[in-house]
């Protein structure tokens, strides 16, 4: 009797299924279980939303990857980018000077945008909406940067500057983003929409007083 038990091959215990087929069935069962669990869990936009670290002009907003401080905000219908090219908009150019100080390791805040009160998002680009981070900043050394973004005049009042590391908004999930209320009003929007003064967009520079 004991000899019979030892002689029975283990693979035959699963109703004669070959071992590979059994493995495949288990794999599919695991995938199906994972999908069912995912469907039951409350995985939605709220649970994966980024952590907004907020502040105003002149506030030092601390994030996981560094500090952001908006130092000044200007606006007009005309800007001159760091290469001297003049851009003219039918809306308003909002020009924000700010400082970031990397934390822990060199960082590049590559995503810079204005968010208006309606939820519209206006991002920087290379030419039309100039912004340059100046590359990775060494931790602890403040870097002065500027971004100019064109928006319709009705987006100015209440606009906030949004800064974070990753360019793809999908990658902002569960990460820190700096959200700074620029303190802008309808009076600012009206004045800037009528202004033809050329506002210069500064190049990035290191040091606490570099931009001044």
């Amino acid at each position: 009797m004991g000899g019979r038990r030892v002689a029975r091959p283990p693979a035959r215990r699963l109703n004669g299924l070959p071992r590979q087929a059994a493995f495949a069935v288990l794999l599919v069962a695991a995938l199906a279980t994972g999908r069912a669990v995912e469907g039951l869990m409350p995985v939605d936009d709220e649970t994966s939303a980024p952590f907004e670290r907020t502040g105003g002009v002149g506030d030092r907003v601390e994030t996981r990857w560094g500090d952001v401080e908006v130092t000044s905000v200007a606006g007009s219908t005309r800007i001159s980018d760091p290469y001297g090219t003049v851009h003219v908009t039918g809306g308003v150019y909002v020009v924000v000077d700010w400082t970031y100080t990397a934390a822990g390791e060199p960082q590049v805040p590559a995503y810079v945008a204005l968010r208006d009160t309606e939820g519209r998002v206006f991002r920087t680009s290379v030419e039309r909406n100039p912004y340059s981070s100046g590359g990775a900043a060494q931790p602890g050394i403040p870097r002065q940067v500027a971004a100019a973004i064109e928006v319709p005049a009705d987006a100015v009042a209440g606009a906030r500057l949004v800064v974070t590391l990753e360019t793809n908004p999908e990658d902002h999930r569960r990460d820190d983003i700096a959200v700074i209320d620029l303190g802008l009003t309808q009076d600012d929007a009206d004045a800037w929409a009528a202004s033809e003064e050329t506002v210069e967009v500064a190049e990035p520079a290191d040091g606490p007083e570099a931009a001044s």
Partner: protein
Amino acid sequence: MAESGGRLRRLGLGASRQHLPLAGSAAGAVVLAVLVAGGFDPLEKPAADVAPLVVGEAVDLGPFTVTVERMRVVDELPGVSEGDDDTRVLALVATVTATGTTTEYGAMLSESVALDGVPGVPAEVLPGDTADPDEPVPAGDVYVMADGTRLDAVQPGLEYEVAMVWEQDARAAVPSEARLVLVGRTLRQSSIDRSQEWLDPLPVVAGDIDVTAPSAEPSEPAEEDS
């Protein structure tokens, strides 16, 4: 010799017989995994429903609304093309707005307007790629008329008067009209990373537009004023 060859053949047959269930199981696992994950979405075959081009009429292309205004040949476009004996520039003047709530980038706008069958207008080909000469050629670049700078981002809520440009070989004849193709896109979830993207480019409007020949006037008046 013959015996050893026969043994090898038997070994080979044995090996393939062993792998057969494994391959079958793997294939079955893949099919089941795809079914469990939701299966393949049926690909909707687009109908060839291309509307005729109407100059001055706004066309919804998905990410953008484009209104085609006029097209002309320019020997030189300040800040855009240093005119020479080898090339001329075909410029399409259009009005563009972004339809969504976030910035759309200029590359997608360039790809949304194409010239079809104009001699001497080659497609820009990336290294390693080949160009299909029968395919419409997307605009080489888009410039803002107000200041002549490149439009690399279209902000929501703003209207831009733009020049979409193609370079034409000067040895080809100046066209009196050109066939334009406007390409639309659909906002849907990407099957790769589930993000919402403008995908499935398809022609939605096509038709001929008159091309105005270069002005006989010797120079640009704006250049002389400044």
